[in-house]
């Protein structure tokens, strides 16, 4: 029978052994180190028990120090800095937060969700895996921190925040207005939640530029802007907010951001821009010998 005494040692009572009624002490996980004691002696020498335990410990210390060290637990596998084929979409607003009123019968939360559902297959066609912060209209709106947490957890190549506006013209590509730090923080160092985007601002600007180029190639008017739109500043991945504003052509009537054809054109251009961004900024790991370290590299 094995019990644990307050000193943290296993007390093994060998009642069925030839020396029945004796109590032996041993260190956890080690063989018995002390001689057996008769139970009568134990009762008689109860007052000497602390001294005995101390003596046993002093005897055991050299043996413990000579024991082979326990096998080290396997080191956790380092996670890659980003997954080059993963994109996070964040259709803004939702729930009680309707956003702006885009047209007489559509709110911004519905337009952004419809746009995300058009953008997803376009991205899949380019070989991306897509994670969305919401696929329906939830009863309660997601908080800014929940959206940022979802995006940061999966380490995507890019995060795209989707917005729509009833005024303005064309497509607005928005990058965080935070100022990037002068020196790049070392990997693994904690960053402030409200400035999490700052170290990747240069990549976010390149992402905005790539998407802007493909939108221009699709004959869509583009504005590249800087603004702090929640949760842009909390994202650790390259991130931009895409705001769909009405498309004003030569005719008097502007195409609303809720128009399906307009959304599809923009979605195709954004998907092409992201594919170009992946090619330029996150080539496959086996294509770059210097990217041997998984932490600094990219996961396929």
């Amino acid at each position, binding site marked *: 029978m094995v019990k644990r005494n307050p000193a943290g040692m296993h007390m093994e009572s060998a009642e069925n052994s030839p020396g029945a009624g004796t109590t032996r002490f041993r260190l956890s996980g080690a063989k018995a180190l002390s001689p057996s004691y008769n139970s009568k002696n134990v009762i008689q020498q109860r007052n000497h028990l602390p001294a005995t335990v101390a003596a046993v410990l002093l005897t055991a210390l050299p043996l413990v120090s000579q024991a082979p060290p326990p096998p080290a637990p396997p080191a956790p596998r380092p996670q890659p800095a980003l997954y080059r084929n993963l994109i996070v979409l964040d259709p803004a607003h939702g729930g009680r937060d309707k956003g702006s009123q885009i047209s007489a019968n559509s709110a911004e939360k519905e337009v952004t969700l419809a746009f995300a559902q058009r953008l997803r297959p376009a991205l899949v066609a380019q070989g991306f895996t897509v994670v969305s912060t919401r696929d329906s209209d939830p009863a309660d709106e997601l908080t800014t921190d929940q959206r940022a947490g979802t995006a940061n957890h999966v380490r995507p190549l890019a995060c795209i925040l989707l917005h729509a506006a009833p005024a303005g013209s064309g497509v607005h590509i928005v990058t965080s207005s935070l100022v990037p730090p002068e020196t790049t923080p070392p990997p693994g160092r904690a960053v402030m939640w409200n400035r999490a985007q700052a170290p990747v601002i240069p990549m976010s600007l390149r992402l905005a530029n790539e998407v802007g180029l493909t939108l221009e190639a699709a004959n869509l008017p583009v504005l590249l802007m800087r*603004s702090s739109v929640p949760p842009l500043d909390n994202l650790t991945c390259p991130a931009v907010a895409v705001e769909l504003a009405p498309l004003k052509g030569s005719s008097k009537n502007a195409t609303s951001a809720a128009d399906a054809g307009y959304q599809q054109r923009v979605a195709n251009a954004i998907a092409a821009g992201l594919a170009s961004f992946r090619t330029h900024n996150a080539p496959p790991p086996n294509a770059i010998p210097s990217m041997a370290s998984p932490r600094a590299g990219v996961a396929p």
Partner: protein
Amino acid sequence: MIPRYQRILFWSLVGCILLMGAFLLHGCREAHKRLTALNDATPIAAPTAAATEEVNLYFASDANATIHSSRAQVALPQDTSLKARALLEHLLAQYSRPDSAHPLQSGPSVDDVFLLADPAHPNAGRITVNLHGSFADTHPSGIEVEQLTLDSIIGTLHAAFPEFNEVRFLVDGQVRETLAGHASLDRTYPLLDTTAGPAVPSEAATQP
């Protein structure tokens, strides 16, 4: 002898009159509250003793998402805090004109402006702008339009108070996450010249 039914009718009519009177009084009070909220008549300072000053106002334009600077003569109080408030009130009032390139609703816009200078660091002061709740509630929603309003305020404050280097926004004395659902208000903005327009995509900027 007045018949019983006539007495009942009389008192019923009296009751109806009292109820209608109470309802009318309640409606008048609610309307008064609404009008008071929209028309803040708090005097900022008597500008009679103040001479007009030439100031730089930074105006936003929705058409091309730009901010342009314009000089104007404005009568401003001598007190620095009141001067900042009057300057911003004047700036934001221009956006309610019919020909505004960045249309905003008229009404009170700025409740208070606090200037917190740091004597130890001459150019490290902070300005806190307390916006009126109705201004934020009626502001058009959208990233571009909200950011242009903030850039307009930031640029104007930077030109008028170069000794301060950052600004923070409150709404009705409270921290608010966004102005109208998009542009963040729960961070501190550096005071700088905001006349730079939107960037243009270029092939040269695609390479890391």
